[in-house]
């Protein structure tokens, strides 16, 4: 029950993020999104009392909900990002698209419902959030929002990992986090170069 509520919240934060036209607002919604994800992880982890997932949840809360947004904000101040980010796909298209995507993903995952014991809608929702974060990437021209799109795609992955599979192996989770950090480092370097070269 609660799980479903938070999943809805997750989707909602993502969708709201789609319509924001300010960078900080976007970062904020991203951190909200991660927050919800972390809470989900903790809840499901407690339900299944899966240590790995609890760790993941905490890591999510620490890194994604707090760390990365902070980093991004820091970057944006350091490297003077453009903070006016007007979505390229005009709102009325988006209004059509987002429900369409949801419908499509539910239609897509319909055959699975009677194949697995878990709730197929979770899969549907995580796929749709994947698509939505793609949408987020494609509707912005600047780099920063694209990064956020990429990060929320990561979130979608986690959602899938948590809800559909009930927790991936510890190793994988940590590996993913490691790569995430790696990515941040590389971004940092790239930004640096931007500063140097420009």
């Amino acid at each position, binding site marked *: 029950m609660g799980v479903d509520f938070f999943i809805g919240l997750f989707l909602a934060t993502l969708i709201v993020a789609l319509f924001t036209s300010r960078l900080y607002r976007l970062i904020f919604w991203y951190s909200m999104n991660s927050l919800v994800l972390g809470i989900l992880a903790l809840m499901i982890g407690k339900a299944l009392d899966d240590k790995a997932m609890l760790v993941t949840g905490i890591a999510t809360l620490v890194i994604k909900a707090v760390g990365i947004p902070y980093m991004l904000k820091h970057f944006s101040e350091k490297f003077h990002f453009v903070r006016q980010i007007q979505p390229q796909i005009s709102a009325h298209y988006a209004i059509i698209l987002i429900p369409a995507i949801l419908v499509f993903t539910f239609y897509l995952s319909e055959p*699975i419902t009677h194949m*697995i014991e878990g709730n197929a809608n979770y899969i549907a929702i995580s796929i749709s959030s994947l698509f939505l974060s793609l949408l987020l990437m494609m509707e912005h021209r600047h*780099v920063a929002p694209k990064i956020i799109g990429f990060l929320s795609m990561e979130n979608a*992955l986690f959602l899938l990992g948590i809800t559909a599979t009930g927790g*991936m*192996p510890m*190793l994988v989770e940590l590996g993913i986090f490691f790569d995430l950090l790696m990515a941040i480092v*590389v971004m940092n370097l790239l930004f640096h*170069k931007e500063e140097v070269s420009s």
Partner: protein
Amino acid sequence: MLILLVLPALVMFAVSFSHHRKAKFLLPISSVAILLPIVKLFWLPKPYAIWGNYLVADRLDTYVLLISSLVGIGVTLALLTLDKHVKVSPKAYRRFYRFFAIFWVGLIISILANHMGIYWIGLELATLSTVYMIKTNHTPAAHKEAWNYMIVGAIAISLVLFGIILMYASAKPILGEEAMRFDLLLSHAKEIPSPFLFEMGFAIATVGMFVKMGFFPMNLWLANIERASFYPVAALFSGILESAVIIGFFRFSKIAEQINYAHLYGFVFVYTLLTIFIVAFLIFRAKDFMRLFSLSGVEHMALIALFWVSGGTFAALLHFGAHAFLKPALFLSTGVLESRGKYRIAGALRGYKGKKGELFWVLVSLFLLAIISLPPSPMFFSELYGFAAMVEMAKQSDHMLAMIAAILFLLVLLSVIFYRFVTLYQSMKYEGKEEEKRVYGSELAALVLFALCLLVLLLPSSFAYLRSIV
């Protein structure tokens, strides 16, 4: 064993921080040293568990790893005289090696992985490290492309992970946490309760990998990146990174084959045919080496995937090996070919004086003709066998004529590429005016190395080995 494998890379990483002038020589040596444990591994009995059942060396991945390490050596050799052709600071040089080391670690992990998650982690590591290698070239274009690569690559990789999770989810009910292991998945594929879920995951993962390899519709992004970065990086991309991707495709497709062969085959066939269609006509218009080579790399990758799923595993592996040697060789030679300015195709193969020059242009023309699979290049045989496998498939299938028509169409597309390359070769050799070009020993050594590897690939014994892999 694992320590042995990653040790040279770690050494390289460490050394790359020192400003000592010896470092300049230590780095190449360490990267050459990567070969040794791999050769060791090559002789060990298979399957050989390196790290539990997370990293297991079987014949397939040792073969891929061996080839990649050989390519790595060639690239290192070419790096020695990189500064002769382009402006590169020692700092950038060291940093390049730093990320090269990370790249190697990621690569070794992902290639040897027997575990989808580990595989993905390695792949991501390798990808992210290459992002920085692109940046060693200090141009705005390179910077832009690095970002471009960062994002597209990230999307592709996350798609792969998404697919992996779906597959894992589909298999978890029967295998539990072990559902991430390739070997178990392969053996239990038939029992997976929700094949559609698996197929969906496979589709998403494959799309991710295909995008990473520059298949339809993202045909040009790799080309642009390779254009913007230094040519050794291009060589790394085509020679090593793509091998890490394709091996994942090999494994996933083997499992999907168990689930539902018809779906897999239809999907891959259509996708690769589409890719080759686009690529053929892009090549027909391509006017510069980098773009031409990377597009043809895409074409070959598509062929390899197609051969693999058509059951021509031998052909696929042979083609893979040949491509892994040929393409880096060509990319490395572009450094010399373009030494009189980019986009100067006419007369690029003329004006080489002395023994070195002679050898260079002969080798390059041989590579150029080998890439369009003229005998006796390994690609000739691999395409022969690969198409044989496809025709076999066609004859078994219940719409034979359509498939034969499709194969014919594919061959026609290949001959478009053939035509383009012949034109290119002729204008390189017989048109344009002669301009003096310098060839350096190290590049030549790299080319010779690749040529020797190709010859080895042609030996009957190595044919036999490839046949025995799968």
